[in-house]
């Protein structure tokens, strides 16, 4: 056999893929669309690492506040930058106030010119928001004139809300606002610290990738088999005119090759379109610019080679049980009973690969990436291997019921492999998703932690800048729409010495009503001072004997290295009252310690050494109440800090992985749903004449529709059962690997299997209109 003959056969196959009139084209396009969708998803996956890297690089390039603690001297190349982030509804808004101190002050990435006072440059997304009606409330908070937009190099996503505003007089506040304000001479961290990747997080990412890509691979394998029956008939005709069985196989391979190569082209187009679309979308608060999504060339090349190769192999594998004779096609698959032993070997081998890592835990746990990937792949491939056996074993035992049931069961008995193949993708996706759900639920406590906040008495905290008058500011907050109560305090620190104090404790100044929120007071009148004894959180008041009447203490003591300042002494009064601790306004664990002082008892000298803070009880039923408060706070001063407290918080990275899973699972299930629908329609089209004949002799359309539903429902129920078993097993193994107690997240299992079942239901519903059309009597026409 020479290469020329091979090439000629393959080319003949390629021609067959596109000839045959409208039907031939339709089939080729269907295959190409199927393969194309899979390729697009694969390319997207290969582009994700680069997207994450670019995001990380852009974030690093604009880093400004470094928490270094050192203040560099003012120069002509310095810039004072203050973090003035805010939130709008559920979105974070990144904000910086800039005060260049000389002509060579560094410009932030993406900004061409410093905004002057009363001006700001904003991200395109923020500009759009501020110019829309929806952003009117935010515009009140950010009233500066927009003089430009931040370029792509200064943003980490197309939907990011960010602004730089011009400011003056910031420099004098650097000392008192460390961590929020800094003098810098460059943007970007010259010595970036690369974080050691968390092994559990790495495990999660690996499993997410495998779980999402496996069904895509299965989908591609299904897509290249579209039109299989017609192809077999065509090949039989070729045998009649002298083609031998090897030639027919090569021709079939050529057909598959053509479909998959066209699929590659489609996939690239889909990917490019999706890439542009990705620039306009924001999913779970993550957005990217199209330019971020560049597939790694090596991985893209791998996709370009692997997909056509896989298509050819799958086709040849599918033809294994088919004997194409000149007078027709004989399927020998039916005679061979499926064997269980090698199908069981796959998941067992998968478990064996994962077993050595059980108990590695998260402390020393650098999981072997290859074993993890291999093990998970084998376990999931096990689903695809076991499912045809299970479907065959079960349907062969099903008895006959009504006509719809009988038609469905008989069809499944005749071609259980096709049925199993149709639901393989969903079963694998569901098994993987169940395992991931379990893993997420198990490690949830690591990544989701309770803030310890009791949000029943107050939900927002406003920290006032030093120059803001507390009483007037509190009144403004009280007058804000939706605010029910404001508890305002001035907070400071008292030490036993003016410099280098050995013992020190908190001082909180507030009226009686406010003080009662943080301690149990026996009685209270303006002019009283209390010492809180027995606090768990901070015991220095009692340990350092600071509450002894007549003892001299100092407000805001100085420490070695800090700038000099005048002493602010205070003598513990003789009529000091005793108070008992009470859980904090926002924190169950935290109980206020130290001295509590009513306003009349506060010496005038204290006014400048105290920090104003207000806790707000808000009425969440008032629309945008938090943004009304933020607007009021912003009106009080640029550096006013507003925090909304919730009971739980998660780390960002966990959120990103979780988001990735949901987005990926949604895409994969949509993809599989589409493939199911295409296969379903193809099968129905091939039975068009029979369906019309059945209707002709009076078969109810309902009976045929029900039969189609059963045909899909029976394999999917079996598939979901198997998926649950494999998913739970894999989940348990993964949890054991991370050293987390094994617990079944039944809600997760039910929701995932429910989603899988819903996909099938939707596909069946979508296939009903074409089914009803195919049942029309026109199907009986031959001319």
């Amino acid at each position, binding site marked *: 056999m020479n290469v020329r003959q091979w090439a000629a056969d393959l080319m003949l196959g390629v021609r067959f893929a596109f000839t045959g009139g409208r039907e031939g084209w339709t089939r080729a396009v269907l295959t190409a669309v199927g393969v194309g969708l899979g390729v697009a998803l694969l390319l997207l996956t290969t582009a994700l690492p680069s997207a994450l890297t670019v995001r990380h690089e852009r974030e690093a390039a604009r880093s400004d506040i470094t928490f270094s603690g050192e203040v560099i001297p003012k120069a002509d190349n310095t810039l004072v930058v203050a973090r003035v982030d805010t939130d709008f509804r559920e979105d974070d808004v990144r904000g910086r106030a800039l005060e260049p101190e000389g002509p060579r002050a560094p410009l932030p990435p993406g900004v061409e010119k410093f905004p002057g006072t009363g001006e700001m440059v904003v991200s395109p997304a923020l500009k759009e928001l501020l110019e829309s009606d929806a952003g009117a409330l935010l515009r009140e908070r950010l009233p500066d004139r927009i003089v430009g937009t931040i370029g792509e190099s200064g943003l980490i996503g197309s939907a990011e809300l960010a602004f730089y505003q011009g400011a003056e007089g910031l420099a004098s506040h650097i000392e008192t606002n460390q961590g929020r304000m800094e003098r810098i001479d460059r943007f970007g961290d010259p010595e970036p610290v690369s974080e050691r990747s968390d092994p559990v997080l790495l495990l999660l990412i690996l499993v997410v990738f495998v779980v999402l890509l496996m069904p895509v691979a299965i989908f591609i394998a299904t897509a290249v088999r579209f039109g299989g029956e017609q192809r077999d008939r065509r090949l039989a005709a070729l045998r009649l005119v002298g083609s031998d069985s090897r030639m027919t196989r090569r021709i079939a391979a050529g057909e598959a090759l053509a479909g998959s190569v066209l699929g590659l082209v489609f996939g690239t187009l889909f990917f490019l379109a999706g890439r542009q679309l990705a620039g306009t979308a924001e999913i779970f608060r993550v957005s990217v610019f199209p330019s971020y999504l560049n597939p790694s060339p090596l991985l893209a090349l791998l996709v370009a080679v692997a997909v056509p190769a896989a298509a050819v192999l799958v086709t040849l594998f599918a033809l294994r049980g088919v004997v194409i004779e000149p007078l027709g096609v004989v399927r020998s698959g039916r005679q061979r009973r499926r064997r269980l032993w090698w199908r069981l070997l796959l998941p067992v081998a998968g478990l064996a690969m994962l077993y050595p890592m059980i108990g590695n835990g998260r402390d020393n746990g650098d999981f072997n990436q290859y074993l993890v990937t291999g093990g998970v792949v084998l376990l999931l491939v096990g689903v695809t291997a076991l499912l045809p056996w299970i479907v065959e074993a079960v349907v062969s035992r099903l008895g006959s019921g009504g006509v719809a049931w009988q*038609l469905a069961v*008989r069809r499944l008995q005749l071609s259980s492999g096709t049925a199993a193949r149709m639901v393989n993708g969903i079963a694998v996706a569901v098994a993987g998703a169940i395992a991931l759900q379990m893993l997420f639920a198990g490690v949830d406590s690591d990544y989701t932690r309770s803030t310890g906040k009791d949000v029943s008495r107050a939900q927002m905290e406003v920290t006032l800048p030093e120059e803001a008058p507390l009483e007037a500011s509190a009144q403004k907050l009280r007058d804000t729409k939706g605010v029910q109560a404001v508890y305002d305090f001035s907070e400071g620190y008292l030490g036993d010495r003016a410099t280098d104090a050995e013992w020190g404790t908190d001082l909180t100044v507030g009226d009686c009503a406010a003080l009662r929120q943080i301690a149990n007071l026996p009685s209270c009148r303006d002019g009283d001072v209390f010492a809180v004894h027995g606090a768990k959180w901070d015991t220095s008041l009692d340990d350092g004997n600071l509450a002894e009447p007549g003892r001299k203490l100092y407000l805001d003591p100085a420490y070695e290295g800090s700038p000099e300042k005048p002493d602010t002494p205070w003598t513990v009064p003789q009529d000091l009252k005793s108070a008992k601790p009470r859980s904090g306004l926002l924190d169950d664990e935290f109980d206020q310690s130290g001295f509590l002082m009513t306003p009349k008892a506060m010496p005038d000298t204290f006014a400048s050494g105290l920090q104003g803070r207000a806790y707000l009880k808000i009425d969440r039923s008032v629309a945008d109440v938090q943004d009304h408060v933020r607007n009021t706070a912003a009106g009080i001063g640029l550096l006013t800090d507003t925090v909304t407290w919730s009971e739980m918080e998660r780390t960002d990275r966990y959120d990103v992985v979780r988001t990735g899973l949901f987005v990926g699972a949604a895409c994969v299930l949509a993809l599989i749903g589409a493939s199911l629908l295409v296969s379903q329609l193809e099968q129905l089209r091939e039975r068009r004449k029979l369906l019309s*004949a059945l209707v002709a*002799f*009076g078969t*109810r359309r309902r009976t045929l529709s029900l039969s189609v539903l059963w045909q899909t429902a029976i394999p999917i129920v079996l598939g979901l059962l198997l998926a649950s078993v494999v998913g739970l097993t894999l989940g348990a193994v993964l949890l054991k690997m991370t050293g987390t107690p094994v617990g079944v997240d039944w809600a997760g299992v039910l929701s995932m299997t429910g989603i899988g079942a819903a996909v099938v239901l939707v596909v069946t519903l979508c296939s009903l209109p074409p089914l009803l059309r195919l049942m029309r009597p026109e199907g009986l026409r031959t*001319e």
Partner: protein
Amino acid sequence: MTPPAGSLLSAEQLRKAYGPTAALDGAEFSIHPGEVVAVMGPSGSGKSTLLHCLAGIVTPDSGTITYNGHELSAMSDSQRSALRRSDFGFVFQFGQLVPELTCVENVALPLRLNGGSRKEAERAALTWMERLEVDDLRKKRPSEVSGGQGQRVAVARSLVTNPRVLFADEPTGALDSLNGERVMELLTDAARSTNAAVVLVTHEARVAAYSDREVVVRDGKSRDMERAV
């Protein structure tokens, strides 16, 4: 216009177009109980469309079809479906047996669609299969039997409900002459034994020879032919 006296099924002034093509253009037809009428004509003349209209599978654009005193065109789709289940039987060129079902299950299918129990339906099916000499095929699937055998199974299926009208669309079109004749013999004998009327669409004169009367359809119009004796 009233249907011819004593006719079981009749059609008057039937018109049906598929797009710009007129398949029927004022066709007329009638058949009496127990009568076998051959509808003949060249390919594309409209004979299958006439059969589909008569059977209530296709609704004509205009004209009336009367079955047993009831106007078919006035019936709803579900009423016509019910009528096809109870009173009509069908045989198509390629049998159109359900490939997943065994032969006996295929024959029993119309009875089951009528709500009959599986056991009773299959018992009745077997009786008809015996009459059509295919009872030995009862456990085989359609793909495992020959074309002639399959067509006889299809005839058994069409007769199992004891229909009053049997519609046969080129029932021997896919068979050799020997098999074709055997099928026609069995079909007409069985129909006559139950007094069923048979509408037989064919373009073969030797098949039409089994009929009592011939109607020729040409360009959508029908014409009764005198049988040359």
